[in-house]
């Protein structure tokens, strides 16, 4: 997943004129195809989702959401998120600090390792946990002796979710901290700041938006994870997070209830996207104010000649 707050948040391209442009007709044709595609493929599923959720009226909607098992699933999901997000935030900050502030052997390997969850199927992650904590797993006998349950219970779901979501914060922070360099931190050290002071007063303020963005992604993904959690869940009503409960309802042909519960997650997704858009405008705003130093392309403006005829200094 080659995303970072930099790339995704690069300001809208403000090229004014290009000497060699497509014809107006071609442009609108391509825009039209893109719009139809996005409309049919991305917007329609969202719209249909909310339509189905409310089709049977608000009363059915509310009763679907307030039944015991739904409330349990919400509790499960929130518990998982509350445990997973801080852990992964801590990991992300530590990993980004180690990877961007120091040179050491095996750095590339470590970077690749952090990308691993993007490559591995979530269901495989679940099987890994079963191999370790299951009845016949490595730690199975020991866990049984102490009457502890990891897989097919909440701890397993938390671990599965941690695995699937741990790269998000790190992935956001690494490019950001790399582009900012270590000079501000070195300056703080020369002024007598301690390690923690450097982190709190210099590093953290400059990465806060990237960190926030990473946290949002982690939360969204932690609440929505299906495959990995599915494998390590006992799939008993009342002991599963929201996505599994949706599946359960759907499998029981309780479609409208499934949509009502799913709409909670869809709402979460819409919130995520809105927050992301807000963060983007925030970022652009601060960038315009010169608060952020990024490697995004410089857009000339003002009375400089390059405002009319952009050319790239090399």
């Amino acid at each position, binding site marked *: 997943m080659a995303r970072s707050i930099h790339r995704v948040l690069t300001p809208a391209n403000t090229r004014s004129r290009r000497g060699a442009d497509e014809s107006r007709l071609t442009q609108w044709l391509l825009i039209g195809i893109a719009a139809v595609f996005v409309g049919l493929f*991305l917007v329609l599923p969202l719209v249909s989702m909310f339509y189905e959720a409310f089709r049977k009226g608000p009363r059915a909607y509310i009763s679907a959401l307030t039944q015991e098992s739904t409330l349990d699933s919400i509790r499960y999901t929130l518990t998982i998120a509350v445990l997973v997000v801080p852990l992964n935030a801590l990991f992300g900050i530590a990993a980004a600090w180690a990877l961007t502030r120091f040179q050491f052997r095996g750095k590339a390997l470590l970077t690749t390792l952090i990308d691993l969850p993007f490559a591995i199927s979530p*269901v495989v992650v679940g099987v890994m946990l079963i191999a370790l904590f299951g009845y016949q797993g490595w730690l199975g006998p020991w866990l049984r002796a102490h009457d502890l349950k990891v897989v097919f219970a909440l701890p397993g779901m938390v671990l599965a979710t941690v695995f699937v979501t741990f790269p998000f914060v790190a992935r956001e922070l690494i490019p950001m901290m790399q582009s900012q360099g270590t000079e501000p931190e070195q300056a703080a050290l020369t002024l007598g700041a301690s390690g923690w002071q450097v982190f709190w007063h210099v590093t953290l303020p400059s990465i806060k938006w990237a960190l926030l963005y990473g946290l949002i992604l982690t939360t969204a993904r932690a609440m929505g994870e299906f495959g990995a959690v599915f494998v390590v869940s006992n799939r008993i009503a009342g002991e599963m997070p929201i996505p599994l409960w949706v599946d359960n309802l759907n499998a029981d042909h309780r479609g409208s209830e499934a949509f009502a519960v799913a709409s909670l997650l869809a709402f979460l997704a819409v919130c995520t996207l809105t927050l992301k858009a807000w963060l983007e405008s925030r970022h652009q705003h601060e960038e315009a104010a010169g608060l952020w130093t990024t490697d995004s392309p410089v857009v000339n403006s003002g009375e400089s000649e390059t405002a009319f005829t952009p050319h790239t200094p090399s």
Partner: protein
Amino acid sequence: MVRPNPEPEETVKRQDKMRRLLPGFRLTLGFTLFYLSVVVLIPMSAMILRGSGIGWDGFWKYVLHPRAIAAYKLSLVASMTAALLNVLFGTLLAWVLVRYTFPGRRLMDALVDVPFALPTAVAGLTLGNLYGPQGWIGQWLAPMGIAGVNSQFGVVIALMFVSLPFVVRTVQPVLESFEQEVEEAAATLGAGRWRTFFRVVLPTLLPSIITGFALAFARALGEFGSIQFVSGSIPFRTEIAPQILIQHLDEHETAGAIAVALFLLIISFLILGTINLIESWARRFQN
């Protein structure tokens, strides 16, 4: 994946210098390694060791079961089709978003992230409904003889949905940093728009398009949540590889699940390696 280290001496010198400069090296690296060990390395080794306990015969019995092979085939073909379609539409979207200004451009840009943000279970649920026989889209497909759900068509649609952003978000930044001058240079040399696109722009975009394809393909290959809702899990027809694994688990055949999981893990590593190769190949043209 491990890039060659510079001169050993130099590395040591630089290491010392960097270590002295900023604090927290031991703490952060130690925590990172500890965390990765607990979360990733130990479970993974457990699975690999458990897998090796199955023995080659058992392993192949599970992995090469005809039903499993049919599922791999569908996973491979459907993921490939979805990723290729996404290359087409994703590149088009990236192009339109970067190059043109039009009302709603920012909204369109935000909407590209819907598949990232929407939990796959929700995506599967709504796609299953939308393309179902009574669905808004499915009712138009039915008369044409296309089954929108419980079909391979449905699998492709779901995989395409979940993997679309990978292509767009990989191509977009490359297109953004593409120098306008280069296209103008082609124009002053007499090349028309089409030729400029195919001879100059596309070769430059190609590494990112291939990377986007590989990421989308990898994502599609591992996808399970949404498929659970649209495929109907019909053996030999609409079952995908992760579903074989789940089936083993449901039958309490842990060994089978582990064998298939190992096989999928190896495939994931191969893809990851390929992506790394592509990226280092693409760096060839950077300074």
